[in-house]
């Protein structure tokens, strides 16, 4: 069969392939495979796959043809959040994200990839400023994975095996943490215990915390803002109770709130984790996530990180900076099963994008974005609460409003279907995740929403509920 050379495969030119086969003294690829793989394991037929589309134009028409059926939050008014959020992405973030060098680098050395290491380090530097810590690393997969690593760090630090988490935590994120903790009866498993939240405020129930915390508790994990949107303002009390029991305080944060909200270090956090995506990374249907971990610069904490930690250093030229991996023998690349959890290909590019974002916004921009979110979300809460039967349930929130519609007798699912017909993605239906909260939608408003958009939502919601 005469084949056209494929544009992605230079040596698919038949003459070249033949020349190379001659150079290695073989007559065909089959002959070589037969020397390396036993006959019984060779796949003998041609794979049955759709016809190839080697022409870029045809490929684009095919794939774009499928994807263009979808709607996105760019043209559809969306109030979805709950772990992946629609925030403003500055064009410079896209520009750097698309730079060939960062996009296609991987495992180069300290010299040849100096810029990549400096970029990784600057992400650490900038996120540390937001959370008030001194150590961070190259981000991991998502907030849930970061929380999973963080509570395991706490367990190793304390030698204890119980993890306390708020019952208001995202079930999906808790699911990720549960896989890290291991919910079986294996000897190394960590036990997760849920601490109740106040049904009026959504904040942690401190009495329940006091009841549940014990000398077995490795850490108390809580979030700011939490999955249900609530700003947890009892951080200091929680930290006092936790430290009193000899446990670690682990706080998960949405860093886009930290221009206006107190950093977790102010209220006693020992380990901070959270989600990087709000800082300039596109949602990409959930593919934009990246989780960070941060802590104080103490050797006992540093020793427990699974992540790659980049340190700055000097060179033989005065004033010149170099970068490299700190305490690398901790990692699974060095220690295999004896490592601190594992590390792998995670989300370094998202970390770099977030670093660009933080350097674009600066302290004033971070304050302004936080204020814009607060103003718009509270405006939305006021407008939406004016609708009969609609209640913004928890009073102290950042960007997610727990919108309850019990009094209307309607179901969120049906309301959202009707909203979709009007070109709106309504808030996330959490009636199955939190049956105790009735028919509630986690309604996310950020700096990207305009007053006109919020007003339109309020009008459409009112029409749908009528």
């Amino acid at each position, binding site marked *: 069969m005469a084949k056209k050379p494929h544009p992605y495969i230079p040596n698919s030119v038949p003459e070249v392939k033949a020349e190379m086969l001659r150079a290695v003294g073989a007559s065909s690829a089959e002959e070589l495979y037969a020397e390396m793989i036993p006959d019984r394991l060779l796949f003998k037929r041609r794979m049955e796959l759709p016809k190839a589309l080697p022409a870029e134009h045809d490929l684009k028409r095919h794939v774009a043809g499928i994807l263009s059926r979808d*709607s996105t939050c760019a043209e559809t008014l969306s109030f979805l959040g709950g772990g992946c959020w629609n925030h403003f992405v500055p064009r410079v973030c896209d520009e750097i994200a698309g730079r060939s060098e960062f996009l296609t680098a991987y495992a180069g050395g300290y010299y040849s990839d100096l810029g990549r290491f400096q970029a990784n380090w600057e992400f650490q530097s900038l996120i540390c400023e937001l959370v008030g810590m001194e150590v961070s690393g190259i981000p991991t997969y998502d907030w849930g994975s970061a929380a999973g690593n963080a509570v395991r760090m706490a367990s190793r630090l304390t030698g204890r095996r119980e993890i306390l988490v708020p019952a208001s935590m995202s079930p999906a994120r808790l699911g990720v943490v549960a896989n890290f903790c291991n919910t079986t009866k294996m000897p190394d498993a960590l036990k997760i215990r849920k601490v109740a939240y106040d049904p009026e405020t959504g904040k942690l129930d401190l009495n329940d915390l006091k009841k549940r915390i014990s000398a077995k508790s490795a850490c108390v994990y809580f979030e700011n803002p939490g999955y249900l949107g609530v700003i947890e303002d009892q951080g200091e009390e929680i930290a006092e109770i936790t430290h009193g029991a000899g446990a670690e305080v682990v706080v998960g944060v949405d860093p886009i709130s930290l221009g206006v909200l107190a950093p977790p270090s102010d209220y006693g956090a020992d380990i901070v984790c959270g989600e990087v995506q709000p800082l300039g990374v596109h949602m990409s249907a959930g593919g934009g996530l990246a989780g960070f971990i941060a802590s104080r610069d103490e050797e006992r904490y540093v020793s427990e990180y699974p992540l790659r930690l980049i340190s700055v250093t000097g060179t033989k030229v005065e004033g010149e900076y170099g970068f490299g991996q700190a305490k690398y023998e901790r990692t699974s690349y060095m220690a295999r099963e004896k490592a601190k959890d594992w590390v792998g290909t995670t989300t370094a590019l998202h970390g770099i994008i977030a670093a660009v974002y933080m350097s674009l916004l600066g302290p004033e921009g971070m304050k302004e974005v936080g204020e814009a979110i607060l103003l718009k979300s509270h405006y939305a809460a006021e407008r939406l609460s004016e609708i009969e039967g609609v209640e913004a349930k928890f009073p102290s929130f950042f960007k997610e409003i727990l919108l309850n519609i019990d009094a209307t007798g309607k179901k969120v699912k049906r309301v959202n279907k009707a909203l979709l017909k009007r070109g709106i993605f309504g808030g996330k239906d959490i009636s199955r995740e939190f049956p105790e909260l009735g028919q509630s939608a986690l309604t996310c408003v950020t700096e990207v929403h305009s007053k006109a958009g919020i007003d339109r939502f309020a009008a459409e919601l009112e029409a749908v509920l009528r």
Partner: protein
Amino acid sequence: MTEPKVRPYHAAAWSEPLIHELGRSGERGVILPEVEADVRKAVGKPELLILKSMRRKAKPGLPELSQPQVLRHWLRLSQMTLGMEAEIDLGVGTCTMKYSPKVNEELAAMVANMHPDQPEESMQGLLEVAWRFANVYLREVSGLDAFTFQPPGGSAGAFNNAAIMRRYHELNGELDQRDEIITTIFSHPCDAACPATAGFKVVTLYPDEETGYPSVEALKAAVSRRTAGIFVTNPEDTGIFNGHIDEWTSIVHEVGGLCAYDQANLNAVMGVTRAADAGFDLCFFNLHKTFSSPHGSSGPGSGAVGVTEELEEYLPVPVIIKEGEEYHLDYDRPKSIGRVRDFLGNLQVVVRAYAWAAAMGADGLREAAEVSMINNQYLSEKMKEVPGVTKPYGGKRLDQVRWSLEKLKKETGCGIDDVNHRVIDYGVQSFFTSHHPWVVPEPFTPEPCETYSKADIDYWIAVLKRVCEEAYEDPKILKEAPHNSSIHALDSAPFDDPERWAMSWRAYRRKMK
């Protein structure tokens, strides 16, 4: 044939300051969307919306720069990064540094503004792409039956598979008995670290001196009623294919264990040999390696997992299913391991992988495999010209070879680290050596995948040859390398010194005082 002339390279050397040292107070890189006056009027002062105790007191210590200066800083850092596209990156083996077609970036960008919880009817296209890539392409490549894209990297795929094994034995009531995972030393470290994180004890098999992989007898001696399963890469990171792999899976199945295949090194065997046909129950693919999605300076990637029909119900939720012509997210799976990551995984990576596979088709995938394999034979042949290099273990290799510079080190004092510092002076990326432990002394592992032309391989070999010759002629050249890099020899002592390491500007400033 004339040897290609090695060309000197000089890296960009901007002596770029840290971002915290740039800009001045008051500068702004970007203005946030407007907050309308009516909104401000209706809501009042934003600080009053937060309880006083929760208000941030001191502004975060971020730098203040205008937009052109921010862009310039990050551009300079990018220029001081030797990205794969600008050079011949075949020295970074096990990583399959293949070309990521540019058109795929445009296609992936189509999903940039989608939210994962959008109504299913608004994301049928994306779900179709993901479903088709799994159930048409990966199914045919692996022979397995059901798939998930939730694991966002290769190691996360291994962890996902450890969690499935854990759940499988738990539901069968055997977990208290089955607490051991067997792997091999030339399997990726994740095949040991992820099962360990999942709570298993890990037993590591070492290679037979002749074949380069552990013998069937070694496996037989290792399995028992305690065996939960095996995690094995094949071809291993040495490029050697374990031809007894189907016997291995039978042995493990006989004692009641499961078999997980790490398919990170799939590239040279696509359409040549399949996971299911070797008896595996689970496997994972690195879509950022074999399936062309760019490596992104180390992620986002995707560790796509495939399992047999028997294990389908253990996959993390949600699973993308097709009913009639519609695609749905199925959450109702009582035996599921739950979640290994929030939402659906890195679907923008899946879009790229689908586009690549669609451009290749059956013959293209096979061609990519064959050319990768032939490239490796050719590179191996050329390696004979390079002084100081040896090949531990006999036999031909598929996608790569784990070579040794032990001879060079003994004869010149220059080992892999020295060579790695010198090759970049000729515009070639530092090689991937090997994960630890270095069972092969002074290792390096080039992987000349289908992206690289014959001329590329010839050039790369010419560089390595020149550098090794330099080691014999004047080792100082290597010992003092790199000579034309972005920076001069760095001081690595602080990396392991708590008093001197600094993972942030804050720590650096404090420690410099």
